[in-house]
């Protein structure tokens, strides 16, 4: 089966063509804000201006008659972006005369990770700009075992970076600066069961700018926030009695976070997997691949129910494509 997928929830507009085995083609156009963070209206304008181009690029790589389905990111994400992506997907599905399928963005991150690492039933740590969750598959759904009680880890990093005068996206810059210090400043460490909170770290780090070096703050920020994420991942492995951990989402590209997760897994005899950075970040292939899995299991989205769903939660989706034991 060959499916075309379109991702456009926030910063990276991306279209891709996949079949059962591999990614056949991908074209992307990233929105880079001139200043500040992601502005929803500007992000939507970026999608509107570039969506025809990325789709055309993917279509030109193949005979369009071979495409058997059109998948799109239905949510969660920025409403103005999602609506344009939905409109393009509906038009394309009608034009090609093939089924339409709306994909949950979080689940697409997990599915592309499972695809690229050959994992069946891992605990998933999903960390991106807006999302931070620990999930586990159980009885036809990805259950959210724990999540942030306020902001996502990526937004937490970006928010602090902005107040420190670092350009967007702040995460990679904080990561680089953190490597320059080994001086730890205590920061709020908030874990409640498997839930966690990051807003206190942003406040503490921003306050610390008055008295400490940026390198020290970045180092302490990462060590504190990531320790919280690793702690809840370990608790999830223990609670669900699983032995594989999959990392998903753009913040997963952080080398220090990967190192900490890998050390935690080694210490408890679990296995740690992270797909390549291109599949951690938002990408069209993850939408196309998840759409393919859904279509293979008879799931389609009628035009009438294909509207954008900005607060689409992963546990709303019935997952029919996983067979455990």
């Amino acid at each position: 089966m060959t499916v075309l997928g379109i991702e456009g929830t926030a910063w990276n507009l991306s279209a891709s063509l996949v079949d059962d085995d591999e990614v056949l083609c991908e074209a992307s156009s990233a929105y880079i804000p001139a200043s500040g963070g992601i502005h929803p209206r500007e992000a939507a304008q970026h999608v509107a201006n570039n969506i025809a181009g990325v789709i055309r690029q993917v279509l030109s790589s193949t005979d369009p008659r071979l495409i058997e389905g059109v998948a799109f990111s239905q949510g969660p994400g920025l409403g103005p972006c999602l609506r344009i992506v939905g409109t393009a997907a509906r038009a394309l599905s009608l034009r090609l005369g093939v089924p339409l399928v709306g994909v949950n963005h979080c689940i697409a991150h997990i599915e592309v990770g499972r695809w690229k690492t050959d994992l069946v039933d891992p605990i998933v740590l999903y960390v991106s700009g807006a999302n931070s969750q620990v999930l586990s598959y159980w009885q036809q759904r990805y259950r959210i075992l724990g999540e942030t009680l306020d902001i996502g880890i990526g937004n937490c990093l970006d928010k602090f970076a902005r107040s420190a005068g670092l350009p967007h996206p702040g995460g990679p810059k904080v990561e680089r600066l953190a490597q320059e210090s080994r001086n730890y400043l205590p920061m709020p460490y908030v874990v409640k069961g498997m839930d966690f909170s990051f807003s206190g770290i942003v406040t503490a780090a921003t306050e610390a700018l008055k008295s400490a070096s940026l390198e020290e703050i970045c180092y302490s920020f990462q060590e504190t926030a990531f320790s919280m994420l690793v702690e809840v991942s370990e608790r999830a492995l223990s609670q669900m009695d699983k032995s594989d951990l999959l990392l998903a989402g753009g913040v997963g590209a952080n080398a220090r976070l990967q190192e900490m997760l890998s050390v935690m897994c080694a210490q408890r005899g679990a296995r740690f997997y992270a797909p390549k950075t291109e599949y951690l970040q938002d990408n069209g292939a993850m939408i196309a691949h998840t759409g393919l899995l859904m279509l293979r299991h008879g799931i389609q989205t009628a035009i009438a129910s294909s509207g954008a769903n900005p607060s689409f939660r992963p546990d709303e989706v019935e997952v029919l494509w996983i067979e455990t034991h």
Partner: protein
Amino acid sequence: MGAEAVVALRGHSVVKKRIPKDYRIAELDTKLRRERTRLEAKIQSDARRAGVPTPILKAIDSFSITMERIEGPPVSSVMSEAVAEDIGAVLCALHSAGIVHGDPTTRNMILSAGRVYMIDFGLSSYDRSLEARGVDVHVFFQTLQATDDRFPALKDAFLAGYARNCSNAALILEKVNEIKERGRYL
């Protein structure tokens, strides 16, 4: 294998030792382990004094606590509406004592001689706020929902147990719903 500590059985005692975590820098790791051990011991004995079934403490040092061994299955393996109702009553008693458990999962409760014992006060704190109590109940609901398909009935039973002695059960439920909605996406 537990996530945070090594628990060893020594006759009628349980020794809970917080082991170093190699993934965390030593400074943060030592601080967290020492603070959590000290606080856990204090809160656990305060909870017991307030009538919440918990193991009796026998000895404490920097990173380990020795306590009475409670015989019985974790409530996750014997869950029923009656058990869920008892959990509600026990959590209400704990909250009334000004304590939130912090990790009230179904694995941190043991059914022994017909009573629900709360164990593992490692993430507990003194907190009387509706917010903290709501998070406690939210954590419990999450583990229940993720592991038991009788969730709706068990949730009702829990709330009935909670409401028996805590008149603010309706407020707590409202808070739990608010916390659930707060999980951010944008």
